[in-house]
Structures are given as structure tokens and as C-alpha cells.
């Protein structure tokens, strides 16, 4: 129903480049002329060549005789836009007209290459692969035309979904579909690629491929999954993370309206797999959510978390007064520089809280565990919004002993990821409940479950000391990082690396790290590590610039220049020339140097992360009641050439809002191992009235295109913090700002 509807609507609004879009079911295309053209990274070429011959649906590109070009997107789309941008690369190389393209989510399998989405890596690691996929399809189409017209291949070119002979004779992809499928898959090493100056798709602005479904309410997220004979489930775990369910009022629960069953799950004790809890199964989501509220459970908390935020703050305070634990980097002699009376020295202690992901689509998974009868094997089918599709089947196989080839994973559209959906405990829970019930179930976490059982952005504390010389130049930097650890290892997002700017740039630097042991699970949160390091480092650099009496821009640019060792722009590490370019550009575009009065100011910050060089200037006002208005954020970005301008701008705009939301109000605390926040009433998020204008400028440098899901977030917090200082003279050293009496 939806597909027909969408198709009809698409026809009506042909002016928005969606007129040929159709939803096609896998294997649901009738009639002749189906083409399965495939290409692959070199290592898979032979295998795929065979598979193409056998006609299996494992390719990225499919042509049908009505002219539709189906391109499969192998990576999950959680809002970062790869379902549009990666197929754009394929379409560009094969010479497709974008309005002929339909994009479908692929299945999960090795033939698709890496399928996880995170670390701003999708574009960086799939670009060459997608180019090969497109070029290979193009060569097969040329071969088909050459065979059909009995003319040499060299006389053909491709454009706008047509193969064109030098005589002017044109053959459409649709006409060539069946014949192209029979051509040999070219050797990837023989492929040539379009010159950038001939691009017609890459570098343009294309509306997301799922937009029509999204605006009509027909896009299917994981939570929208419906399979026949399905029941609904909720799963309640110990509020003190890791506690075991001993007994519960199961009989009372089973008598509640709409409830089919309730039972205790022992679990395997692994917070990343299946923690103990109580499952409630019923005939609607509402029935199981209501029943979950009425659960009375006796917990064994012997191995549960006892983490306390209050205690963490006290421990960190003591640690910050002492020397750092382990030295991660040392150069020159910071102590000597600090002891020289000719230099000016300052210290600053910074802190930042734990933060939840709060993906608006709560964690969920639909699972169908089928017990094999009469000698058949058990099998499992899973529908899940995930960032890590390839990891699921192997993990489920290990836990349930079901053969991997009996496990089917279907990736849905994802209602926000931000790093949260790398773990799959909701998948284990859904499979466990389905197995117990003997029918398919859809597990949905309540918002409260989702916040209280997150993998949080780790909080932390940092103490810094820096010195400027008589000329006002930064000459020494000492940074003690107090992060979170578990079993002696840094938790996700709580690592202090020697590559952290500006340790390697200065002559006298020291970086030390101390970990506080916790049990609260932590995970990647949009720009892990960078989202807190940037705040600390770029704020403290501003403190030092102020100490020196010099302009912040000039002071910052001078640090980039201090590093002697040159790094090639091709590597995934900070490049001084690129850092300088974006910082100068943002200053120019933001009108850096303007002076304001009455509590208004500009703040500057730069940060390198995820291969992106990004600088931001925030223009901020603060009133007498400490109410903040962020008027505008100017951003300069170098992530190489942009694929989809609209998508790239969206990622920068979104990163600014996300960074601001976290800076202003987001804060997770815990006592007795239990997370104290549970929903939007006690976890404030950024609303539209506080959204600043965002002015983005791209430097499309001649470097490989890299991802933009994360790197624009880290510079936001220090840019705003530095602007608050410029506006008021009050230094921001702790996130979120509501803990210091600010509001927005």
C-alpha cells in the first residue's frame, strides 16, 4: 500500500527530482530485462563475478527494463545521510541520471563490504569502493552496447542513463539492461574514473532519498516493524545497573489487561549482551509499558553498580591536587618553564558531566526465533535499527548456537544513532523473549529504560597549567586528564592520547592520565573524546591568550605554526595548513575583531577530529539573569570535496545544535549505581527557540572526502564558552552550563 501511494505522490511532485522513485520489493519485479550488475573491491571480484552469473541478489546496482536504476545502500542511515550520499557516488560513476535512481537498504552480508556506520567513516572508507561499483556497472553497459551494435567499445561514452555512440546513436540503460547483465564483470584494476570536472551529481544538493516516505509517515523505522502473529514486549532491568532479578509479582502482572506473559530472565551478566531483568509480553505496546510500571521486583545487587556522581566529584578533586597517574607524553621541561619568573603562568580545572544519547527512536528490536521441527535447524530473523549490522549474527550465533546462515538480520531506518546503536543488548533481549514465547515479538524500550540503561558519554575532569613568555607566546602546557575506567582500561570516549592538540605542537608539554574505576557503562557519543577534549583545550588556550594580552586568533594560529614536523594532508591526523585555513576563514566570515558592548561577544575555537578540520565562531549575549542567547555560529569546514551539499550542511547544522544542547543542559548523574534522570522533564534538551543561525563555509581542499557526522560538534562548546567570557568576563570551565546558573 505504501509503495503504491509513494509512487503516486512521487509522480505528482516531479519537480522535486523524485518522479521516478518507486519502492520495489526484493525479487518483486516481474517481466524481462532484469539486470544484475555488480562490482566490488578487488578482493571480492572473483566471487562476485560468479555470483552475477548465477543471478543472486547480492549486488549494489540493478537495472530494470522500465529504466529504474536500483542502488543498494549497505550502511544504515540514522540521519547522517549516507543512504543518499553513497549512492550518489555510484550514480555519478555509472553515468546515471539521478531521477532514475531508487535507493534501497541492502541486506547484511560480506559481499557489501563494511556495513557499520560510525566514526564519521562511511564516506571515507566507502568512497573508492562506491566509485568502483559505479564504474564497473558503466563498463558492463558499454560492453552491452558494443556487443549489440557490433562497434568497438572505445567509441562509446555514458551520460544521463544512456550509452552514446560517437555517431550519435543512443541506447538507454533500460534497453541494455538484460544484455548488460550477461557481460563479464571488469577487473577492478582496469577501471578508470570520471574527471572531477565532469561531475554532475557529486557536489550538488540532493534531497534525502527517504524524504517522501518521511513526510508522509510511511518510512519504516525499527519501532514500526510489524510481522504476523507478533506480540509486544517490554524488558525491565535493575535500576542499579547489573543487579539480578530474584523474584517479582509475576502473577499480578499476568492478570493486567492485555498481558500475555511475564517472566524473569537470568541473563548472562554481560552488560553488552543480556543483563538479568523481567520480560512482560502483551497484545500492545501500551499494555506492556503500563505493566512495566507496576512491576515489584526483588533484586540481588551484590554485583550491581554502586557508582555515585557525588563521590566521583570528590575523588576527582583530590586527584586534581596531585600529580597525574601515568604520563602519556612528555617533551621539554614544563616545570622549569613554570618556575621561570619571566613567564606568566595560569591554572584551570575543568569538568564535564555524563551525557545520554537520547536517540528519539528508543532502543527496540523485533525478533522471531523459530525452533526447527523434524530435524530442521533453529532459525532467527531480526529487524533492528542498528549502527552495527554485521556484528549481530555472529554474536547471536555464539549465544544461542544457531548457525549463522540461519540468522537473517534486516536493517531498518534508524531514528538517531550518535554512537548508541553500536551495542546490541536490545537484540539479545528480543531474541531471548521470542525464544521463550515461541512467537515473534517486538521489544520496545520505554524512554525511561532508554535513558537509564544507556552507554553514556563519560564524564571527566581535567586540570591544566600553561605558560606564556614575555612576548606572549605559548611555551608550556601541562594537562592532567582524570577520566573513567573499567577494569583498569579507559571507558569508551575517556581516553587521553598523545595526539591530542596541542601536546605535539609545543616544545614543553606534559600529558598525564588518571582513571577512576566505575561500573556505569560508557559508549561512543558523537565525536567521542573530542566532544570533551575540545571544550577543555580550546577554552584553556583562550585563557592563555587572554593572559598574554593578545588576540585569540593570532595566538591560536601561532600554535599551529609551532609544530615543526610536517604531516601529509592525506593522513588522518591534524594538518597545520588545513587548520590554519579554516581558522582564518571562520574569522573572516564571522567578522572577527568586532567589538560589542552590553554583554555580547564573539568566541573562537578550532578542533581536529575524525579527519575533519573545523573552526567555529559563536556570537553570544548573556543578560543579567545569566540567560544566554546564541545569535549565530559561523563554521569553516575542511573535509575535502563535498558529495551532497545539502546533507553536508545538515550535518554541520545538526552538530552545532547537538553541541549546544549538551553544553547548556544535558547532565546524567548517578547515585547508588542508579541513573537519576529518566525522561525529558529532568533531562533538558535544546528547543527551536534557542537554535542559533548557522553559517557554514566549506573549503573543498584536494584531500580525500571524509565524514561529517561528528567533527563539527567539538568546537561548538569552547566557541560558546569563549564568547561568554568575551561578553561577561566570566570563564566557563564546567559543562553543562545549567549547573552554573545559566539558562537559554
Amino acid at each position, binding site marked *: 500500500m505504501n509503495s503504491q501511494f509513494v509512487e*503516486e*505522490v512521487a509522480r*505528482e*511532485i516531479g519537480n*522535486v527530482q*523524485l518522479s521516478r522513485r518507486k519502492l520495489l520489493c526484493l525479487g518483486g519485479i516481474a517481466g524481462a530485462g532484469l539486470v544484475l550488475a555488480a562490482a566490488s573491491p578487488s578482493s571480492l571480484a572473483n566471487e562476485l563475478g560468479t555470483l552475477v552469473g548465477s543471478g543472486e541478489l547480492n549486488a549494489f546496482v540493478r537495472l530494470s527494463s522500465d529504466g529504474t536504476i536500483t542502488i543498494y545502500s549497505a550502511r544504515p*542511515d*540514522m*540521519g*547522517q*545521510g549516507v543512504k543518499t550520499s553513497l549512492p550518489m557516488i555510484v550514480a555519478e560513476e555509472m553515468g546515471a541520471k539521478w531521477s532514475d535512481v531508487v535507493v534501497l537498504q541492502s541486506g547484511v552480508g560480506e559481499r557489501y563490504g563494511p556495513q557499520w556506520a560510525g566514526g564519521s567513516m562511511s564516506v571515507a572508507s566507502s568512497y573508492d569502493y562506491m566509485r568502483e561499483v559505479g564504474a564497473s556497472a558503466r563498463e558492463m553497459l558499454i560492453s552491452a552496447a558494443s556487443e549489440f551494435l557490433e562497434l568497438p567499445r572505445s567509441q562509446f561514452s555514458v551520460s544521463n542513463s544512456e550509452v552514446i555512440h560517437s555517431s550519435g546513436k543512443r541506447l538507454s540503460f533500460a534497453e541494455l539492461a538484460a544484455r548488460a547483465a550477461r557481460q563479464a564483470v571488469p577487473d577492478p584494476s582496469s577501471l578508470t574514473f570520471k574527471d572531477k570536472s565532469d561531475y554532475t551529481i557529486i557536489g550538488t*544538493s*540532493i*534531497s*534525502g532519498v527517504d*524524504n*517522501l516516505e*518521511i*513526510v*508522509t*509517515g*510511511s*518510512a519504516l*523505522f525499527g*519501532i*514500526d516493524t*510489524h510481522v504476523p502473529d507478533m506480540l*509486544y514486549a517490554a524488558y525491565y532491568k535493575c535500576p542499579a545497573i547489573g543487579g539480578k532479578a530474584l523474584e517479582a509479582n509475576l502473577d499480578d502482572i499476568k492478570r493486567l*489487561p492485555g498481558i500475555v506473559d511475564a517472566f524473569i530472565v537470568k541473563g548472562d551478566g554481560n552488560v553488552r549482551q543480556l543483563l538479568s531483568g523481567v520480560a512482560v509480553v502483551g497484545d*500492545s*505496546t*501500551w*499494555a506492556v509499558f*503500563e505493566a512495566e510500571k507496576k512491576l515489584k521486583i526483588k533484586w540481588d545487587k551484590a554485583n550491581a553498580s554502586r557508582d555515585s556522581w557525588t563521590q566521583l566529584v570528590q575523588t576527582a578533586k583530590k586527584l586534581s591536587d596531585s600529580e597525574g597517574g601515568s604520563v602519556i607524553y612528555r617533551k621539554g621541561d614544563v616545570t622549569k618553564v613554570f618556575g621561570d619568573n619571566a613567564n606568566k603562568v595560569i591554572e584551570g580545572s575543568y569538568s564535564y558531566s555524563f551525557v545520554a544519547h537520547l536517540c*528519539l*527512536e*528508543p532502543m527496540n528490536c523485533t525478533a522471531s526465533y523459530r525452533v526447527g521441527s523434524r530435524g530442521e535447524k533453529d532459525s532467527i530473523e531480526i529487524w533492528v535499527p542498528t549502527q552495527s549490522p554485521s556484528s549481530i549474527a555472529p554474536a547471536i550465533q555464539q549465544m544461542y548456537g544457531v548457525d549463522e546462515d540461519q540468522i537473517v538480520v534486516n536493517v531498518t*531506518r*534508524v*531514528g*538517531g544513532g*550518535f554512537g548508541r546503536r553500536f551495542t546490541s543488548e536490545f537484540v539479545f533481549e528480543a531474541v531471548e523473549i521470542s525464544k521463550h514465547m515461541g512467537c515473534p515479538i517486538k521489544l520496545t524500550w520505554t*524512554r525511561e529504560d532508554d535513558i537509564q540503561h544507556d552507554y553514556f558519554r563519560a564524564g571527566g575532569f581535567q586540570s591544566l597549567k600553561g605558560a606564556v613568555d614575555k612576548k606572549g607566546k605559548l611555551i608550556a602546557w601541562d594537562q592532567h586528564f582524570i577520566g573513567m575506567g573499567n577494569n583498569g582500561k579507559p571507558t569508551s570516549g575517556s581516553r587521553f592520547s598523545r595526539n591530542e592538540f596541542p601536546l605535539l605542537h609545543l616544545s614543553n608539554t606534559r600529558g598525564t592520565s588518571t582513571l577512576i574505576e566505575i561500573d556505569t557503562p560508557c559508549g561512543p557519543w558523537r565525536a567521542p573524546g573530542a566532544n570533551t577534549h575540545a571544550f577543555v583545550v580550546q577554552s584553556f588556550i583562550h585563557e592563555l591568550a587572554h593572559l598574554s594580552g593578545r588576540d585569540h586568533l593570532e595566538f591560536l594560529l601561532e600554535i599551529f605554526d609551532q609544530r615543526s614536523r610536517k604531516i601529509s594532508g592525506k593522513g588522518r591526523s591534524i594538518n597545520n595548513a588545513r587548520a590554519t585555513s579554516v581558522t582564518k576563514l571562520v574569522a573572516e566570515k564571522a567578522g572577527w575583531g568586532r567589538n560589542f558592548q552590553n554583554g555580547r561577544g564573539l568566541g573562537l575555537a578550532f578542533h581536529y577530529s575524525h579527519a575533519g578540520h573545523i573552526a567555529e565562531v559563536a556570537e553570544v549575549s548573556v543578560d543579567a539573569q545569566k540567560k544566554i542567547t546564541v545569535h549565530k555560529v559561523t563554521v569553516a569546514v575542511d573535509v575535502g570535496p563535498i558529495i551532497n551539499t*545539502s546533507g553536508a550542511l*545538515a*550535518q554541520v*547544522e*545538526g*552538530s*552545532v*545544535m*547537538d553541541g549546544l*544542547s549538551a553544553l547548556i543542559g544535558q547532565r546524567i548523574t548517578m547515585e547508588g549505581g542508579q541513573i537519576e534522570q529518566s525522561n*525529558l*522533564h529532568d533531562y533538558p*534538551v535544546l*528547543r*527551536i*527557540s534557542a*537554535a542559533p543561525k548557522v553559517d557554514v563555509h566549506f573549503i573543498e581542499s584536494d584531500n580525500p572526502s571524509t565524514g561529517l557526522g561528528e567533527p563539527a560538534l567539538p568546537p561548538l562548546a569552547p566557541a560558546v564558552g569563549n564568547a561568554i567570557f568575551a561578553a561577561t568576563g566570566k570563564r566557563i570551565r564546567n559543562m553543562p552550563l545549567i549547573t552554573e546558573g545559566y539558562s537559554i
Partner: protein
Amino acid sequence: MPEYKLKINGEVRKVNVHQDMPLLWVLRDSLGLIGSKYGCGIGLCGACTVHVDGLATRSCMLPVADMVDAEIKTIEGLANGTVLHPVQKAWVEKDVAQCGYCQAGQIMSAVALLEDNPNPSEKDIDLAMEGNYCRCGTYNRIREAIQIAAAEIMSSETLDITAVEYWEPGRSIDE
């Protein structure tokens, strides 16, 4: 369980559900209208926004028993056949959505705003949209898309007025 007859998107739909079940879950689980989303369950995120008698309303806290005489419109009923509502069209043109999960609620709030106030200022837009959280931060495009849609609605109404000018004196309006 009692049977309820609900007027949804111009059709009468019968459901047998518990009287306390919020409209959101009736729509999603009983009627398969999955466009309205669950985000917080306490009326603070706006992902479940539908129109009840023309007003943007959070359906996650609205018991079905209170909906008996109400005219309910969901995102699925917004397009006129195959013609998108100007707000939906502007949303596609401005490429508003990132993850897209909140957007049905955003669109329903925006449509209600424009029905009430065809020419909203930026402040009017912010006030009307404040209850719709977007985790991806698409707020600036939401503002722009609402202004584009407002302009389109205004211009199509202007067109209607032009048509009236060609009305000939003495001719019945009904003709």
C-alpha cells in the same frame, strides 16, 4: 473491551481497546498508522503530534475514550490523495529531515500553526514549534520550510481571489 468508533483522516475506524489506551498506541498498534511516533510518553517531545479537531495535540497522553466525537487527523491523512500538503512539499524541498523520526510530529504542528496563522513571524514559528524536539537539530530548516509553505499557501489563496475577479455579475456563485 469496549468498541470505539474513531473518526480518523475522514474515515470511521472501529477498535476494541482498553478505555485508557492513549490514542498514539491505538493508531500505531491497533490501526497500523505508524507515522505518529513514540518518543517520551509524557507529552514533552512532540513526536506523537496529531490534530484533534484541528488542534495540534500530543496523542501519547490522550485516552481513547475521550476521542469518540473528535475529528482526528494524522500524518497519513495530510496529503490530499496524491497531492502533498504544502508543508510536506516544503519539507522535501528544504531536505529538512535527518533521521526523520520526529518529522511527522513537526509537520503536524507546522500545519496547525499555518491553519491558525497563515503568515507567522519567526517568533510565532518558534512558539508554535517549541514542544517538538528534534534530536538531530533540524530547527533552522524547519523555520525555513514553514515560511516556504506559508508563502505557497498564501499565493494559492491569492490565485483563488483572482478567480473570483473573473466572476461575472449576475451569475450565480454556485455555477
